[in-house]
């Protein structure tokens, strides 16, 4: 177990700059997710940490020691691949034993047949077998040890890949989209199991995914990556509720956050579709900005509400109801979360008026940076009334 520190890593493939100076410190036993759309460089970063790819500049320290120039095998990290990458010709037990055999046995001891009579080979094989069965026990795959990977289901293969990773007590686990080849139901189940495994092993996990739900549900911290940079690295609830940038707000959260174009007038007051809102951003430049409202920040309201439109679609998930509203004057539809019992009142075409919770409003400037200094004007107006 160890802490990792990634210092200003950059990676160029020819002219294209894939990583533009990534820095992140991961403490011992932490579960950090690297999340972002495909092509954001998250897998490249993981491969650089693993030693499978070399960085163009920057350094990586494991337990304070720089691993620059070290081979992947010498970094004591283990990796779980998206395709599981099990050796197709070896049984499950042999697959899990490979990393131990390569480390604990000499080349002579590993020879087929002849290796058995080499001194020390039998003892080495004995301890390896013990460790393999221990790992198999943790993952509940003891009954599969004699099978070939081709005879296993996707979920079982995934466990074997995890087994091969955890059998040698690595400094950290690197997981590259390990769930994306599983079906939806199994994915939810395995998600919980991996989180549980993390608690049980108390090991450092670095988890790469493009699925923000996986990142949200499992991690201690999420690093949201886009265009070769980490935009924000914080705990899941912070990233969700308090995003630094509009890209982060848009990427995290399902259904997606509603982004409404607003105008900043003098004194920083915001107006939506030429209607002034009870919200001001003191000190902001005049011009366009964006107002981000999560589906749960919106609420149904009566006359005088800032947003008007009609229902075009609704999705009932049982515990909640998502309603798509086409807003007059806006190209994009707005998603509203409400209780399923409102369903009968929100049939297709019903005109609705929407208000929002000013405390949950997120305002971004024209460049997408968050404007945190918000002033709620509704308190004062209500006093006047």
């Amino acid at each position, binding site marked *: 177990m160890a802490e990792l520190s990634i210092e200003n890593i950059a990676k160029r493939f020819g002219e294209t700059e894939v990583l533009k100076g990534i820095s992140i410190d991961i403490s011992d036993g932490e579960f950090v997710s690297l999340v972002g759309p495909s092509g954001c460089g998250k897998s490249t970063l993981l491969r650089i940490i693993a030693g499978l790819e070399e960085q163009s500049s920057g350094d990586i320290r494991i337990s304070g020691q720089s691993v620059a120039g070290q081979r992947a095998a010498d970094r004591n990290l283990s990796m779980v691949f998206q395709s599981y990458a099990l*050796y197709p010709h070896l049984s499950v037990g042999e697959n899990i034993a490979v990393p131990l055999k390569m480390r604990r046995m000499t080349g002579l001891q590993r020879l087929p047949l002849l290796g058995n009579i080499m001194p020390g080979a039998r003892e080495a094989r004995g301890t390896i077998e013990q460790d393999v069965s221990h790992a198999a026990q943790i993952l509940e795959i003891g009954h599969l040890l004699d099978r070939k990977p081709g005879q296993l289901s996707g979920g079982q293969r995934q466990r074997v890949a995890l087994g091969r990773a955890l059998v040698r007590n690595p400094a950290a686990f690197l997981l590259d989209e390990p769930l994306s080849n599983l079906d939806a139901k199994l994915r939810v189940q395995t998600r919980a199991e991996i989180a549980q495994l993390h608690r049980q092993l108390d090991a450092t996990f670095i988890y790469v995914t493009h699925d923000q739900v996986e990142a949200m549900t499992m991690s201690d911290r999420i690093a949201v990556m886009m265009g070769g940079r980490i935009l924000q690295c914080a705990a899941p609830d912070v990233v969700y509720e308090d995003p630094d940038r509009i890209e982060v707000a848009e990427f995290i959260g399902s259904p997606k956050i509603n982004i409404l174009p607003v105008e900043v007038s003098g004194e920083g007051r915001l107006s939506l579709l030429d209607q002034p809102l009870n919200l001001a951003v003191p000190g902001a430049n005049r011009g366009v900005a964006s107002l981000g409202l999560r589906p749960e920040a919106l609420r149904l309201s009566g006359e005088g509400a800032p947003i008007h439109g009609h229902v075009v679609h609704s999705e009932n998930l049982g515990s909640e109801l998502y309603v798509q509203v086409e807003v007059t004057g806006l190209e994009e539809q707005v998603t509203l979360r409400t209780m399923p019992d409102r369903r009968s009142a929100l049939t297709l075409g019903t005109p609705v008026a929407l208000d929002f919770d000013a405390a949950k409003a997120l305002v971004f400037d024209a460049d997408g940076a968050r404007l945190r200094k918000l002033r709620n004007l509704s308190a004062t107006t209500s006093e006047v009334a």
Partner: protein
Amino acid sequence: MTRDWWKHLILILGVIIVIAPFYMMVSYSFKSPGEIDRGEGGFFGRQEMMVDERCVKLRDPSREDIAAAALRFPDTTDGNIRNALVAEAEADCAVRPVVFNYTKAFSEAPLLRYLLNGVIVTASIFLIQVVVALPAAYALAKLKFWGRDAVFALVLFCLLIPVHAIALPLYIMLAKLGLTNTYAALVVPWTISVFGIFLMRQFFMTVPDDLIDAARMDGMGEFAIVWRVMLPTAIPALLAFAIFSIVAHWNDYFWPRIVVTGNRDLFTPPLGLREFKGDGDGSYFGPMMATATVIVTPLIVAFLLAQKRFIEGITLNGMK
């Protein structure tokens, strides 16, 4: 069925064209010289007893034989004794044509020795080809290095060079090194198979990169990856290559004929066929075809055993 009949007709015609020489070969190996000459006797021949004339000639009685046999045939002339002895020899030398052909095949020339040579030469060639081709194919498929595409282009280019074009320079090189009439002359020119490198490279391209990265994480070096990961996953492709390589070198007549001159201990099976060629009378077709049958049988058996995996290897989809 009704709509596809013409496809089957074409296939059946093709099969007949391919099978016919084999049919003739096996059939001739069963027949007596007379039946071969007259083209009669069906597939197996009539298998009537025939007289091996060479055997009779070898036992042609000399003066001493006649004198020694005088006790057995009392009260008769030497001429009659001689006739009786010849009749005895003819009776002893009467054999079934099939037995005649196959015993001749093994006795006239050291066919077993030739077969052993064939095994030694083809196995050495194949093993060394694999030892060279696998790492080369791995590097060309999975490693990134400067000039890789140029090297691969050269490999493809080498596929275009016909063997016969470089036979003479090769022979001169071997002769200058004093290697003609050795196993080395039969093996060395074929140890680097560009076809093998190409075939294995194409197969390795289908092996997922993740598998190689996983092996690297598990602590394997590049050579360990070649032998411990790539080789076992490439068995079907390797089998396909084995068939191409072994068939080509087992059946090769051209190259052994050039570099092996005189020393019959180094003859490969196809050279053994020369033992029966053109003695003017053409009566050795039977043993010759028996030899040919013996030579091709191991290959056909090997192909039938490996057939399924061979086709897997040709279609190049070892892993998903």
